């Protein structure tokens, strides 16, 4: 009975302790989220590297926290690395913190789809939780969805275009150096090989857009972009149009496919208005190029012929 009485006392005491943390429950409004919630790539190749940045977002950054990262992808655990490590500080005041997931596909990876999960848990920076309570920490789950394939994918997405004002072309002697349209493109390589637009075509109309005045396309190579990267690149397009305002309908090609087409305003200024170089030799028309190269080559041939004859004469003399 005494024993029973003591046990009863103990249970009451424990119950009172549990009741205490019920009353201390507090309203929590801070949230946690991530964006994007995935690491996804369906065109990985062997030996390729792919990086995905994920933002860790806190609703209330008043308290310092840290994010504990757990990768749950048994099949590809060796491929995946969180660049910032498995514990990422979430400092006070930092509402969003980037986390970079790097995927390195081994050279012997099977060609198939791989899935996994990355769990992100936020905990107090000092590891302390509210005493006497079952606290709740927030986290988020990143889905991993990777596919390794054995074929090249050449594709890109045009994210932004722009065209700046330009000087009109200039005539120098008989040579006409056209104006240079600088057409900038923000390109995302969505394939798995280096790529750039195969060509950029401009159809330039009067400002009312009624009369086609010139059709031209880029000269020279366009810088290639690495797989999965997004970069701004430039296409240089010659134009012989005089100063004025025009409407240009552009088309950006990936081989025979038009990846994007649209309309831009084009402002051609009087020569010398802008401190920018126009096209050089590469902008010349074929006849003009020939008119320069032909005399040079002819002269070279004459010189070589002369040198050859002199050597021949010396040999004969000796």
């Amino acid at each position: 009975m005494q024993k029973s009485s003591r046990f009863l006392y103990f249970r009451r005491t424990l119950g009172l302790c549990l009741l205490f943390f019920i009353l201390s429950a507090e309203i929590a409004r801070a949230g946690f989220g991530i964006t994007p919630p995935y690491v996804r790539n369906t065109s990985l190749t062997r030996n390729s590297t792919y990086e995905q940045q994920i933002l860790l977002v806190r609703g209330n950054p008043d308290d310092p926290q840290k994010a504990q990262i757990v990768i749950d992808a048994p099949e590809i655990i060796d491929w995946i690395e969180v660049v910032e490590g498995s514990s990422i500080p979430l400092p006070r005041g930092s509402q969003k913190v980037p986390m970079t997931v790097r995927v390195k596909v081994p050279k012997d990876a099977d060609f198939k789809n791989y899935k996994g999960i990355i769990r992100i848990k936020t905990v107090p920076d000092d590891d302390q939780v509210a005493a006497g309570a079952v606290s709740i920490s927030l986290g988020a789950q990143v889905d991993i969805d990777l596919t390794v394939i054995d074929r090249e994918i050449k594709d890109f997405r045009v994210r932004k275009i722009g065209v700046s004002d330009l000087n009109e072309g200039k005539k120098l002697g008989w040579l006409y150096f056209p104006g240079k349209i600088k057409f900038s493109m923000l390109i995302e390589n969505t394939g798995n090989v280096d790529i750039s637009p195969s060509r950029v075509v401009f159809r330039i109309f009067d400002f009312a857009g009624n009369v086609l005045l010139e059709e031209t396309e880029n000269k020279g190579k366009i810088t290639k972009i690495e797989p999965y990267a997004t970069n701004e690149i430039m296409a240089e397009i010659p134009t012989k149009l005089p100063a004025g305002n025009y409407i240009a309908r552009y088309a950006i090609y990936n081989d025979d496919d038009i990846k994007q087409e649209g309309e831009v305003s084009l402002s051609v200024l009087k020569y010398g208005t802008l401190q920018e170089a126009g096209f050089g030799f590469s902008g010349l028309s074929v006849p003009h190029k020939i008119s320069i190269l032909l005399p040079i080559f002819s002269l070279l041939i004459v010189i070589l012929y002369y040198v050859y004859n002199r050597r021949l004469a010396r040999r004969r003399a000796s």
Partner: protein
Amino acid sequence: MLYNFLEKSNYMQTAGKITIAAALSGLLIFAFVFLFNAGKSELLRVEAQTASTTLTVLNTPPQWITLAREEFESSTSSPTNSGRQISWIATASNNGGVPYYLIVCSTVATPTIPVSGAPSCNGGTQWGVSATTTESTQARVATTTTEVAPFGEVNNWFAWVCDNDAVNPRCNNTYSQGISATNSSPFHVNYRPVFTNLSSSPGGNPGTVMSFFTTSTDPDTVGGEDTLVLHMCYLNDFSTTTAMCGLGGTIATTTVPVTFDAGASFTLPAVIQDDVYDAYGYIVDQHNHSASGGQQGSNVGFTVNNVAPTTGTISLNNGGNIILTVDGGQTTGFPLTFQSSDANSCVNAASTSEMVGYDLSIFRDSIGTSTCSTAAGAYNPNNCYPSGAATTTWNLTCTASSTSCTGANDPTVTWACTFPLWFVADPTDSASPFSGDDWVAAVAAVDDNNATGTRTIGSSPVTLVSFPAISLITAEIPYGSLEPGFNTGTLKATTTIRSVGNTGLNQSVDGSAMCPGYSVGTPCPSSASSTIADFKQEFATSSVSYNSGFDLSSTSPFMLALKVQKTSSTTNPNSGVTYWGIEVPIEITVAGAYTGLNTFYAVTSSSTDW
């Protein structure tokens, strides 16, 4: 001789006798002549005349050295414009160095010439006579033509040379009518065109053809009617000398001359301010003879219409994916840039901005511009943000670049905007139910005449990225009080998560064992008396009985399909409830506050559950 002495006896008696009176008279005359030398010259002349009668030399008329001709051609093809001079020149010699006259008449009759003075035409019209001209030098005759008699459109002329001999002036009987086809009689007078009406076509848009019309004729008939040309000048500065507009410049000129009602057209510049422009009209004929009076030099003006601006390059979020980073709130500062162009220039005639505003909306593209108009009523924080919404609802701010408009010839201005998006904005990446969509901006510029262009959708849509975000109503699990050996009976403690991102949510759960000294870095010891194992906590989506829920695990998170739908309200996030229960093992002997930590992971739910 016989005399009648009876009748004339007195005379007969004095005849042959010198009277005293006669002698005195003679003496007086002699004295007068002697003293005053009177009549000296007369007497000498008498002596010369007396000599010439023996040497009679007649004056001879001047002789042509160069026949008279028009100084400047006046012909059918090159007539003399009325009001201008017609002039003739010739050179003649004359014996004795006596000067001569060149006289031009309309008839063939030889002029008459007085002993002193210039000759005059003998009938018809005297077109002119020169001043006395030293012989062997060029004489010139000129007269200003008019459009009234005696001037006609065609006028014959005959030129003579006459000398200036004081005694016997003479004209050469040989007249001249020129020496070549281009300087011979007749001379032609070109009459001015008649210009009675000037008008312009109604207002035109930039880049279109503007025409000017006249009522104009030319009275000339010889050689066919003259053709007419209309010159339209920006200023009232037409030069009748050059028959061209002055420094103000030419608006338009007749390209194919016509014999009446000349008109002119020109294409308005592609970029020109909407305004009423001066336009002064001038008619000239094919001989550059301008009209006088009537509408000559009147300002008819022309009107350039206002046209609606267009929208060029649109860049939403600089082409990058839209990433929301504020759970339960608005992410601010997304950039939107666009160019608006106006054929009326970027600056108006008052030197202020031509393009003063915009109508735009930013939306998930399958919503379309019809549903997502620019009106405030179209606002939907999930998928449509129209500029018509109040700034308290959607704080879009746009500014026209102060440097992008370079002057009246520049049609384009660049706008830079920033805008916020709510956390509920629909994601369009591949895991979302809107994966076929993207977000776009549709923009129409508005000009100073309140003309609004057609909304243009940007050619580079962007992806809005999924943003699963979770928040809690309470940060702890309220189990209540339990004695060892008891459980909660049912899962009656609840936790509520709210979806404060833009996805549907499920909840993955893991949790630690509980003990009095738990902290993240100090897990609970394996103690039967003081550690409540993780699996003693159960959870479910409803208040089932204890042992019917899912056991909590510290190592294997369990995904609880709460299926919290994507939140669509900015003020009332969707939520999901988890029911919790716990059992305190009978072995627990350590009383006190037990501490633990469970983790709720936000998991993006299947798109079918949004």
